[in-house]
């Protein structure tokens, strides 16, 4: 193993980590703020990929416009899912289980609707103009598109942190996580906040799907692969913790990238091994603060 091999794997792991982070942060945001577990989050990722494909190939749109369409489309559909369905079961006995079942039914419905609209065959997207080449620096060659993804991911992470930590909407979101009733008594429209948070989170997922489309093929099964990887990320990072999702994605992305290069056949098993190890030694999540251990 030489240095350039390690550097290439590190960078490709970082690309994967960025995409995972975009999906997992949405998942963790919905859970942290609304205490809703969105099993169908991967399906919004998949929808994003298809919306981007549709915009570029059928309407000849620019790739970046397509990514924006994907984010907005997934966000609107996410808000509709929350407003029309999920909202009806808040506060019901054994809510957690029913939430999982309801969002599971979203997966089944969205997957089949996508098959009806776009068919089952693989779709592919070209990398956007200006990001088709690669850069070689210090003996390491890296596609510029991957570097762009990493850059965008960092930008979104910092922006999201800034909004959550420093602005009023962010404070409202965090307050929703702590005490909904008190927040409502103070004149904040809590149900609307929940719908908006859901929309932002699914928009992040859809955006990640669009960004990933040129790297992976677009298939109806993409959502399921992604949701399981993001679940592992949030388990590793500690559910509901923003930076935990980032660190968990980083860890899983890097481990995966090296596993693909070293033991290609068993790469998909390695992620689970990481999760099991993490679970044995720190079940509340590697990066969760000590006292947090929600029931």
């Amino acid at each position, binding site marked *: 193993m030489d240095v350039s091999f390690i550097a290439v794997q590190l960078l490709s792991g970082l690309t994967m980590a960025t995409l995972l982070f975009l999906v997992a942060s949405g998942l963790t945001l919905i859970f942290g703020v609304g205490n809703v577990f969105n099993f169908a989050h991967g399906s919004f990722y998949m929808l994003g990929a298809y919306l981007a494909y549709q915009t570029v190939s059928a309407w000849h749109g620019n790739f970046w416009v397509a990514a924006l369409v994907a984010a907005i489309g997934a966000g609107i559909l996410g808000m509709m899912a929350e407003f029309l369905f999920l909202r009806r079961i808040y506060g019901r006995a054994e809510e957690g289980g029913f939430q999982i079942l309801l969002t599971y039914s979203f997966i089944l419905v969205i997957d089949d609707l996508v098959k009806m609209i776009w068919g089952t065959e693989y779709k592919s997207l070209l990398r956007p103009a200006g990001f088709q080449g690669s850069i070689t620096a210090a003996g390491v060659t890296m596609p510029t598109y991957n570097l762009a993804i990493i850059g965008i991911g960092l930008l979104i992470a910092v922006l999201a942190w800034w909004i959550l930590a420093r602005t009023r909407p962010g404070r409202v979101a965090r307050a929703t996580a702590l005490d909904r009733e008190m927040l409502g008594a103070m004149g904040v429209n809590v149900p609307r906040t929940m719908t908006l948070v859901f929309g932002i989170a699914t928009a992040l997922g859809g955006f990640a799907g669009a960004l990933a489309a040129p790297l992976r093929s677009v298939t109806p099964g993409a959502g399921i692969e992604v949701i399981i990887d993001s679940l592992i990320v949030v388990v590793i990072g500690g559910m509901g913790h923003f930076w935990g999702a980032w660190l968990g994605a980083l860890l899983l992305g890097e481990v995966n990238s090296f596993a693909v290069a070293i033991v290609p056949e068993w790469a*998909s098993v390695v992620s689970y091994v990481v999760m099991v190890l993490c679970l044995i030694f720190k079940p509340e999540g590697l990066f969760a603060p000590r006292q947090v251990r929600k*029931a």
Partner: protein
Amino acid sequence: MERDTDLKQAVLWLVVFAAFALVPVATASKYHLLLAAHILLWGLFAVAFNMLWGVTGMLSFGQALYFGLGAYSVGLMVKHVGPGWFLPGLGLGLVCSVILSLAVGLLIIRVSGVFFTVLTLAFGQLAWQITFRWYHFTGGDDGVQGIIPPGILGNGLVYYYFILILVALAIWLMHRLSQSPMGVLLRCVRQNPSRVPFLGQSVRFSQLRIYVVSSFFAALAGSLMAGADNSIHTDMLYWTTSGEVILMSVLGGIGQFFGPFIGAGVLIVLQDVMGAKTEYWPLMIGIVMMVMVLLLPRGLVGEFQALRVRLKSLVASR
């Protein structure tokens, strides 16, 4: 699910048992016999699953792991050792399911609620991945075909009655368990876990015990399924199998002991009628799941009972 020692219910279930016993008399079609066997085995799987969720409040999205474990220990035994090793494979599957569910259970009962569900899902998918990739041992995506039960069990009719008796015995055992003091304790774990220690009992130990019991019966259903279908496939381990058994329970009603069995029957008949006509079966079951969760959360049996109670009180108030 509350305790009931209703004699009427016992009679009702004897009638259902007799109906299943008479299926081979009523129809000579092998297909209908297989359908009845599927209802029995999925019914067993669903009742075992509901011991976890409906009774104890632990929603597992990974019971396919044990269902597949039972099926694969029979299938691989027949494939690698010899066709006569069907029953030892069945026994091995049951032993393995206890050992594995103890090991996995010890890890995952450390978390509760949604986290528990996520972890069961992850372990189930891990088992699926391994089976899928380990081609030369498990047959990967091709599965294993030609699993014929040995000796007299090779006869379809005999094998059907073999299944019927084992399923009836297993469901009766679980019913006994749910009516026993342990069953009451399990309900207490669901309804008020913080009070369980006041009774001198341990929440985690109760959860671990029922997790092992449920997994054991899931493995039994899976291994019998291998003989009924004469084949096994990686889909038996896939998470949609776990999803299907959850849907059966919700459909029938998680609040009743026998609800999941009814749900399994309804879903399998529905699949038989609709599945042939539509390629969008997942869409159908997605919509069914949505309707059940949003409008009929008590399930068919639960809503029926609620309706009956309402009618009775209506009549009584007149």
